[in-house]
Structure formats: C-alpha cells, structure tokens
C-alpha cells in the first residue's frame, strides 16, 4: 500500500482490507500518536463535504501531521478557471499526500496518474468513495468479530448508492449472503447481480423492508432520495415504506447492528437511536481510525 493511491475499493486486495482493519483497531486503542510529524496532507475539496473532510483532518491532526487545503472551490484558484491537472501538479509540490473530493467522475484516477504524491479519493461524483467502504468494513468487523459468512441486508437506494456498490465488491471476498431491499425503481443494477453470480454468492431481492430483518447480521440503511425518481408520485408512494422503526427490531438477532453512511433524513426513525443495535454514530467515529490507518499505510509510517 505504501506510496500507492487509493482511488477505488478494488485497488486494494482482501489482505489489504484486513491490514487496514488491523491497523485501525490499533489506532482505536491508541489514537494519539506522533508518527506524522513533519508530514503535510492536502485536503482538496472541490465540492463541500464537511463530514468527510473533518474526519480526514482529525485523523491527520491526531497523528501530529499538518493539513493544508481548501473546503470548496470558491476559495481556490479553480474559481479563476484553473484545470484539475494544474491544481494537482501544484499541490503535489506542497504536500506528501493529497486527499481529494471532486464532483466529476474519474477525477481521482486522473489525478493519481499525474500526481507525484499518492492520492486518496474522498469521493468522485457518483463513482467511488473507498475510505467510506473501508470504514464500513471496519465497523462490520468490529461489531461481528469477523467478516466471513455474514448475512447482510442492504436497504433503500441500491441503484445509485455508491457505498452499497463498493461494499458489495469488498464483502464479496468474505462469502456473504446479501438481501437487497429496495423499491422497484431503485433495485440493485444488473452488473452487480452478474458479479455475484460469477462469484457463486447468494443474494435475494425484496421490496418489503421487514422481509429479511430477522435473520440479518448487518442492516445497511441508505437514503431514498427524491431526485432519483422520474415520477414524483412514485417517490411519494415508497418514501415511507423504507423507514426503519424501533418496533421492527424486536425479533432481530442479538448480534445485529444497523449501519448508515449518514447523513440520515427520515429512513431511520429517531426512536431507533437509543437501541443498542443502532451503530451509525459509532460508525462515523470509526471513520477517523480507518483514515488514520489508510494514511499511515500509504505514507509508510505503519
């Protein structure tokens, strides 16, 4: 992983996932370490994403590194019409690693080809967000004690949700069974079903939320966004059908945990928040440890 960019979750192997999990759990036990002293990490956010940026900056700061960068294009020379190429070539002179988020898909891969320092993709449009995927893996591992042979329910927007797609790719290395629960309009794309078929993995599709909850180890919730529907009436019909309520959790497994990449709107009722099976806020904290692990491995200090 040393000096290698992380653009897409498939840039890492199964062994890499497990190594990130191992190092992240080290950081969880001992999050303040002075191992990045003298290192500069650039966070280039060509579109705002406060949560992701703060998580990265917190990770670097806790390890004694310094952060430079911008939080949106208004305060950068992109506003003056600078190309991505020029921005990357310039910032690569000032930093040891670049964390970037950009609305254009493929921008991070392109940056990794031209940059002399490694790139960590913090989201390129609807394409990839690999550090979110790794923190999801870490959260699953931590709550279940393993990644192998789990029963994973994915709920909501399975068509456009990039976190869902990346997680399917990553978990496919660990013999999972998937239950995909979504409205018809937002079903899991064919290419992922073909991928799972080729790997000989089991998956089931449902339209009713409660169908698969009682035998799941993980319920991965996502937001059903209004703008994804061509017909607003269709949205009105389904918007309340995929809301997880505390009363639905009665017959679920003891080890079951609920994950959500956040931000949540109304798809998890607030009465779930105090249920010990709700894990989404802790999941966000795991993001810091996971990003500490990713940055340390790439910079070669772990």
């Amino acid at each position: 992983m040393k000096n290698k960019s992380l653009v897409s979750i498939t840039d890492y192997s199964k062994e890499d996932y497990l190594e990130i999990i191992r190092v992240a759990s080290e950081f969880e036990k001992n999050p303040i370490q002075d191992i990045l002293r003298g290192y500069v990490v650039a966070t280039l956010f060509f579109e705002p994403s406060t949560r992701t940026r703060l998580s990265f900056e917190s990770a670097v700061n806790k390890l004694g590194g310094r952060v430079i960068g911008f939080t949106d294009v208004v305060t950068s020379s992109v506003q003056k019409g600078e190309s991505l190429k020029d921005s990357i070539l310039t910032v690569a002179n000032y930093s040891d690693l670049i964390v970037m988020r950009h609305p254009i898909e493929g921008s991070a891969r392109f940056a990794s080809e031209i940059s002399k320092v490694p790139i960590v993709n913090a989201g390129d449009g609807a394409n990839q967000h690999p550090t979110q995927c790794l923190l999801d893996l870490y959260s699953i591992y931590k709550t279940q004690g393993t990644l192998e042979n789990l029963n994973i329910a994915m709920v909501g927007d399975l068509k456009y949700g990039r976190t869902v797609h990346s997680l399917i790719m990553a978990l496919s290395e660990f013999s999972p069974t998937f239950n995909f629960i979504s409205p018809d309009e937002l079903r899991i794309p064919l290419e992922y079903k073909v991928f799972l078929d080729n790997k000989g993995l089991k998956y089931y599709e449902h339209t009713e939320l409660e169908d698969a909850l009682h035998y799941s180890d993980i319920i991965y919730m996502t937001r059903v966004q209004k703008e994804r529907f061509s017909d607003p009436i269709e949205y009105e019909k389904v918007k309340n059908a995929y809301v997880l309520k505390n009363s639905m959790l009665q017959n679920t497994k003891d080890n079951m945990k609920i994950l959500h990449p956040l931000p949540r709107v109304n798809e998890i009722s607030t009465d779930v928040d105090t249920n010990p099976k709700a894990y989404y806020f802790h999941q966000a904290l795991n993001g810091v440890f996971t990003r500490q692990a990713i940055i340390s491995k790439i910079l070669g200090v772990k």
Partner: protein
Amino acid sequence: MKDKTLSVSAIKEGTVIDHIPANQLFDVISILKLDKINTQMTFGTNMLSKKLGRKAIIKIEGKFFEVDEINRIALVAPQAKLNIIHDYAVTEKWVVEVPEEIIGIAKCVNPKCITNNEAVVTKFTVIDKEKVALKCRYCEKVTDRQHLVVI
C-alpha cells in the same frame, strides 16, 4: 466476383480493407488517420454485400498497418478483413480483432466523466469483445456499441 478481384489487384503494393459497414467508412478513415497519408487511396462505399447489406472498401497504396493500429477499427467495423497486396497479388489476409484496451478512440458515454470535462485521453478496458462493451478507466462506467462515439 470477377469485379472484386479486379478492384483488389488494382494496387501494386499496399492494403485493402474490405467488409467495412458503409455507414462506418468515415469513422474508419478518421480512426486510421488516413487523411494524413499522402499515398494514393481509393474509397468505395454503398457497394452491395451479402453479409453487410451495403459495405465500404478502402484501398491504400504503399501502406502496411501494424496489428495494434488496425485493430482499432474493430470497434466500428468488427467484420472488416484486410488483404495485404504485394506485386498486385493478395499475399496475406487478416481479420480484425477487438483489442483488450482502447486508448483515445472512443468517447465515454458518461457526461460527468473527467474525459468529457478536461483534456484527458480516454482509456477503456474491453469487457465484452463480442458486444463491444468498454469500461472507462476513469469513471468506471460502461459504454456499449449503441452509445459508441468515435472521437
């Protein structure tokens, strides 16, 4: 059949590209950059063909293609055949083959892809040679034959 033999043997040294779909002739010319070649060339199009309906043919004097170079046209003319001519006779026949990787020929179908927004050369992995499905190295979206646009 006699006419075809005549037209093929009409060049002394060079290459004849046959079985190009008639509506793809200009894409083939552009992919092979034939507009930059100074030797004698003949283009025929809308010729009747049992296989393709209407086909086009290109005859280029004094030009021999590398395999990589010629396979680039497989995207738009997957059934194209090459006749290599020496001293008015066909000495070799090739069929084109869709390559593993396509660089800088096709446009990515995704308007939000970096290759459609900044000066970046397109790169695709061919994930289905028969149906021609190209996966973009950058945005990871798949461009199929129906949406294929030659740059």
